[in-house]
């Protein structure tokens, strides 16, 4: 379950900002990132108390995937791996949808 490793990575990324209570963490998760947002939220809930982030809300923003076709050069929306470009080609490069990003943090009013 790599989502737990990702939560650990998230906590490490938050370390420099723990001087004030964090109220909200926004993650950007690409549709083809191989990460299950619900499971990520579940893992975060598991460690929240121990990490002293009880009051922190985790927001996961899903990001749609896009690819560039090597054949016809067009940019097209893609929902899953193995889907063809509208031109029929399977030879393309994903350029959006694999993100796994700590986008923003918000601090509590104190």
């Amino acid at each position, binding site marked *: 379950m790599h989502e737990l*490793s*990702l939560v650990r*990575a998230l906590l490490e990324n938050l370390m420099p*900002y723990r001087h004030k209570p964090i109220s909200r963490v926004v*993650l950007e998760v690409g549709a083809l990132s191989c990460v299950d947002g619900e499971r990520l939220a579940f893992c975060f809930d598991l460690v929240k108390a121990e990490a002293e982030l009880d009051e922190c809300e985790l927001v996961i923003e899903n990001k749609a995937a896009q690819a560039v076709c090597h054949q016809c050069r067009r940019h097209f929306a893609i929902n899953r791996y193995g889907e063809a470009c509208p031109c029929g080609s*399977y030879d393309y490069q994903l350029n959006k949808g694999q993100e796994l*990003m*700590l*986008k923003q943090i*918000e601090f509590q009013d104190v």
Partner: protein
Amino acid sequence: MCRDCGCGGGKYGVSPLKGAAPLDVGEKPAHLALHVPLLAANDKQAEQNRQWLNERGILCINLMGTPGAGKTQLLQSTCERGVFADLAILEGDQQTDNDAIRIAQSGGRAVQINTGSGCHLDAEMIEEGLAALCPKDNSLLIIENVGNLVCPALFDIGEHARVAMMAVTDGEDKPQKYPHMFSQCDLIVLNKVDLLPYVDFDVDRFKTELKRLNPRGELIQLSAKSGEGIGTWLNWLTTRRQRDTALLA
């Protein structure tokens, strides 16, 4: 100005990888736009591993696949053929050093990495593994990842090429079920082809799906046990090594 909400948050100019000093954010409600890859620390370590390998002319292959695909058997056969006298192997498993022992019995040199509860190898484990293994300059290094088709695909460990391996006993629809792994590898190895007469595995359907997921990926069908197709695998390693060494030089 902050590109998310126009709040002027950009003035904090924070780069969390470099400037780790606490910030006095001041205004309320305060937020900080970061846009940091969650796995930035792993990716940075992976890049350092790759650099370390490049400086020594070592080609590194990340061998991933299903549990029971026959990854260790393939490495044993590779060692036994003796084509790569300087082959060094890192073995990843949750526990036991069974695989490193099997490699040693086949005349290979291996260091075992136990991930404990971890379901994949990460770049830091490889850094430690390399320190213990001390591969020779200009050698070939193969890292056998934890048998798992999901998690290893997400973690760059500093490899030069990725291989995804499965067996005919796993079923022909494995690439469709685990597309992340199979769409992002340089080579797919289909093992246990000697069992094809006994199992329902539609090779044509398998190839069609692979072409859709990974049109540029190569496919090698072999039997690590009988030796069928092993020559093609050894040739692939040789070619890859020549090509990458030329690029490094």
